[in-house]
């Protein structure tokens, strides 16, 4: 038997992933990016539940020679759930089970704030077209402005699958950065007097109203825009589990175990698509910038409409709650609460801001459904 220790060692090294870096050093850059995202997720706690699996997915996908993305590879099967809009829809089931639509039912006008805060989606769509993206790509990029990760992922998977990783990373990164992005805009768009406005306590919403709400919304919205069915249907089913009082176990599973399991698969699947050849491009930088602009325009849209509602209500509505119309739940509502309390320590806007906040979830799903309808082919 011919065996050379050093010969074998040399062969192992020459056939290893380390040696393969010489063929495409961009993989090394992607590994560094993955490590940076892991740091942001773990060290800075930027949306860690998603950023950590996404970053690890990027790490795994950029190790050379693993074949993990090829036919028969593990991630190939994980990605099936993104490709067919399974994961975002299940995440929406969990979100529905976690969401209390009470503040929205108590003040239905909040829905208009949720609609106004979708301005960023359409503005970013136009800006993306201006930067040379194709219409379907621009639509997928625009949906980042909805500040809703699962919706952005679903739209990107249907309209521009090749742009999915930068879109998902931009969406989740900016959602984590909402406490930094929104306050300067909130202070810019509102006066001290407006920020001090104390809002009246919301009425009590009955159990029956809360049960009928998800059923009515599902019937109306899905019948009107059938493309919203996966998101709105699952969101409302999750909420029905929560409110109907006879499916507590299902509600608990949707909120916790199921949502957590799917979050792992969703994160890994999105991350694994971020390979050097498609991610390290100028397009990615453009998407990151457009995502930020989309978030800013959405916040501005909500604030502007908040100001209009403030005027129309005779100063009874604090325009700060308009910024919560972006659907990052509950982060955006918390930011409105913090800014309101800075202006007036006795101010309590959290529950008032939750109305536009959950309306934003419905609004972004409707906007995404519209984009899919127009550009989905």
């Amino acid at each position, binding site marked *: 038997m011919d065996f050379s220790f050093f010969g074998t060692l040399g062969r192992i090294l020459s056939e290893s992933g380390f040696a393969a870096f010489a063929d495409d050093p961009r993989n090394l850059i992607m590994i560094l990016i993955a490590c940076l995202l892991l740091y942001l997720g773990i060290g800075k706690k930027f949306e860690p539940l998603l950023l950590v699996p996404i970053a690890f997915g990027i790490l795994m996908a950029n190790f050379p020679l693993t074949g993990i993305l090829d036919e028969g590879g593990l991630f190939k099967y994980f990605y099936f759930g993104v490709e067919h809009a399974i994961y975002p829809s299940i995440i929406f089931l969990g979100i529905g089970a976690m969401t209390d639509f009470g503040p*929205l*039912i108590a003040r*239905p*006008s909040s*829905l*208009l704030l*949720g*609609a*106004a805060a*979708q*301005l960023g*989606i*359409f*503005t970013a*769509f*136009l800006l993306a*077209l*201006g*930067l*040379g*993206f*194709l*219409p379907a790509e*621009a639509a997928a990029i625009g949906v980042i402005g909805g500040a809703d990760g699962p919706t952005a992922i679903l739209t990107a998977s249907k309209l521009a699958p090749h742009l999915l990783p930068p879109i998902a990373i931009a969406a989740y990164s900016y959602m984590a950065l909402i406490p930094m992005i929104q306050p300067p805009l909130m202070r810019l768009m509102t006066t001290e007097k407006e920020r001090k406005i104390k809002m009246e*306590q919301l009425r*009590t*919403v*009955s159990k*029956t*109203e809360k049960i*009928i*709400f998800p059923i*009515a*919304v599902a019937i*109306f*919205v899905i019948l*009107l*825009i059938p493309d919203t069915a996966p998101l709105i249907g699952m969101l409302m089913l999750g909420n029905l589990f929560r409110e109907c009082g006879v499916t507590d176990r299902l509600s608990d599973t949707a909120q916790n175990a199921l949502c957590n399991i799917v979050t792992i698969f969703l994160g890994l699947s999105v991350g694994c698509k971020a390979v050097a050849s498609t991610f390290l491009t100028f397009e990615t930088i453009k998407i990151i910038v457009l995502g930020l602009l989309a978030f800013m325009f959405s916040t501005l849209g909500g604030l502007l409409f908040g100001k209009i509602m403030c005027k129309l209500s005779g100063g009874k509505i604090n325009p700060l709650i308009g910024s919560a119309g972006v659907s990052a739940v509950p982060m955006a509502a918390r930011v409105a*609460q913090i800014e309101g309390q800075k202006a007036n320590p006795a101010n*309590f806007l*959290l529950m008032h801001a939750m109305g536009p906040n959950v*309306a934003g979830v*419905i*609004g972004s799903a*409707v*906007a995404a459904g*519209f*984009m899919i309808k*127009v550009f989905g082919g």
Partner: protein
Amino acid sequence: MGNLSAGAFLVALSGIVIVFLMLAVLCLMIPVISKCVRMTQKEASPAPAAVPTPAPAAPAPAPAGAYGGEVALIDVDEKTAACIMAIVSHETGIPLSELVFKKIKAL
């Protein structure tokens, strides 16, 4: 400029209008549903005299005099209820005067 065209502006405008319309219809729909629910509940609820009123639950103490509402306590003593309300207030950052507890029930 890029792929911008009049059609693109039309799509963007239509999109935001549709989102507004959809949510505006929901905004109108909710009060109608609420009204129907209240009417149905009013009709369904029998005359107060016919209903044997359950023993009123003990109202919880107002912790530090800040909480003014009434709360039904089910298998929970007043001290525990006061602690729970104080913890909820602390965790949520909502002053007790703004919180409304309906019932606290031991599971």
